[in-house]
């Protein structure tokens, strides 16, 4: 009973004078933790060695996690809005960390289904709730800079992998996983289980900051010197409110859904195949790329993905959401076109194009909550965002599928070098053009969907 009351929205209304700059660290403590999912690949090789799994089997916890992220955000989003951010962050903490503990049990007892259920199933629910938990709160605290606010939080999700990747690797080594380069030679008794266990406990403590620190602004709070009327200088920025139930009935929601699918598919395709792609591109040239350098390329793309989230999302506050998506989609298509024309004649051009594509990929995630807020208001923006994230689940499967299938069929047909990827690059250009058209179709929401003021 006491726990439930501690989690209530009424308990976290900020007192007068509370600084809004305390809210981003609360959001970051959740997003930096759940962003660990992007570093799942660190566990793949040790699990394959220890439990005799194939590459596809060891990817299952991650894939289920991403699907559960989209589903839980869509299904539980309205409840997150109703119960408030502390309840959502606490629920995310419990699910995410319980998932890691169940995975530890699975690794200890060699029951792989428990790893999949724990990390992907239970942990995936924590991902979805955690991802949307701070979104509407941040936008209520930063009505003057919504792109900056959500950019900070969603950059944290990208940053989570930066922390987890080296941290998890060193922990696996400390508990007895022996590597030869990137290859796993042997796995000590319970090394993976102990790593999962420590992850679950440490992340619980880390996320607790968000649960304790998060506050919602009082009903009449607004930033000093800011007036809503001054904000509404662009046609697409509405001061009206739309419920999540009504938002999914609008063409604007589905236009943005298409934009997100196309933008994410285009980015995730290159992100997933980055290391083999740069190797294949320059294999027959005078400047081949070694495996170690390809690893550096992947890291560079991760950095670009993360920085794109904060830089472009913040820029969107100045130039407008529709304009910034024009840049992401048209600019991305132009970069893919350049890659397909320049092929392996210039390594700097290849790297520069990939950097820009990945910065737009990350930015697409970070800017979408502010776009939703412009169109639908802050009333249930977290729940609407949750429903939109189903686009991510689809793109997460679609992007790698396209680029892997095309590369495999081109290889079977005897192609090599950049020719392995030319068709994929053209598919990505097509997708980005579709996304661009969908963005052009976005208009202000019909007033019949607006909530009536009480």
């Amino acid at each position, binding site marked *: 009973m006491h726990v439930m009351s501690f989690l209530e929205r009424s308990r976290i209304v900020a007192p007068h*004078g*509370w*600084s809004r*700059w*305390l809210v981003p*660290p*609360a959001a*970051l*403590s959740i997003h*930096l933790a759940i962003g660990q999912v992007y570093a799942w690949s660190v566990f793949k090789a040790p699990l394959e060695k220890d439990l005799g799994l194939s590459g596809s089997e060891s990817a299952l916890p991650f894939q289920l996690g991403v699907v559960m992220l989209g589903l839980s955000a869509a299904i539980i989003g309205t409840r997150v809005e109703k119960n408030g951010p502390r309840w959502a962050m606490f629920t995310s903490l419990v699910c995410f960390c319980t998932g890691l503990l169940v995975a530890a049990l699975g690794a200890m007892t060699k029951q792989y289904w428990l790893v999949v259920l724990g990390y992907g199933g239970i942990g995936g629910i924590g991902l979805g709730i955690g991802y949307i938990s701070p979104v509407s709160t941040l936008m209520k605290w930063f009505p003057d800079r919504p792109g900056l606010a959500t950019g900070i939080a969603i950059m*944290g999700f990208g*940053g989570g*992998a*930066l*922390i*987890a*990747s*080296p*941290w998890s690797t060193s922990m696996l080594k400390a508990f007895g996983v022996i590597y030869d380069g990137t290859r796993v030679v042997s796995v000590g008794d319970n090394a993976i289980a102990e790593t999962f266990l420590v992850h679950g406990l440490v992340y619980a403590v*880390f996320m607790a*900051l968000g649960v304790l*620190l998060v506050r919602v602004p009082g009903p009449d709070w607004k930033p000093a010197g800011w007036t809503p009327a001054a904000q509404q200088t662009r046609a697409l920025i509405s001061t009206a409110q739309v419920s999540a139930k009504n938002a999914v009935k609008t063409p604007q929601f589905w236009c943005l859904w298409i934009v997100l699918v196309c933008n994410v598919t285009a980015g995730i395709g290159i992100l997933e195949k980055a290391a083999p792609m740069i190797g294949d591109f320059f294999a027959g040239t005078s400047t081949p790329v070694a495996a*170690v*350098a390809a*690893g*550096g*390329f992947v*890291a*560079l793309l*991760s*950095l670009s993905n993360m920085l794109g989230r904060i830089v472009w999302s913040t820029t969107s506050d100045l130039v407008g959401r529709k304009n910034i998506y024009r840049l992401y989609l048209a600019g991305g298509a132009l970069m893919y076109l350049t890659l397909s024309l320049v092929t392996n004649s210039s390594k700097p051009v290849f*790297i520069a194009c990939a950097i820009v594509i990945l910065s737009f990929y990350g930015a697409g995630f970070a800017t979408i909550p502010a776009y939703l807020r412009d169109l639908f208001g802050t009333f249930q923006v977290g729940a609407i965002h949750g429903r939109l994230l189903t686009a991510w689940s689809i793109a997460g499967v679609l992007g790698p599928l396209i680029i892997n299938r095309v590369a495999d069929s081109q290889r079977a047909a005897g192609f090599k070098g950049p020719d392995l990827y030319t068709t994929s690059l053209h598919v990505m250009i097509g997708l980005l053009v579709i996304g661009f058209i969908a963005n052009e179709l976005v208009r202000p929401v019909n007033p019949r969907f607006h909530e009536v003021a009480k």
Partner: protein
Amino acid sequence: MKHAPLMIVSWAWVGAPFAYGVVQLVRKVALLFT
């Protein structure tokens, strides 16, 4: 500034691991140019 100690602790709480991740990443990126 109000809540200054809380502000410092909370930003350090999230900033320290983030800085660790960025340093590790920059070291890895350097491999591309060696």
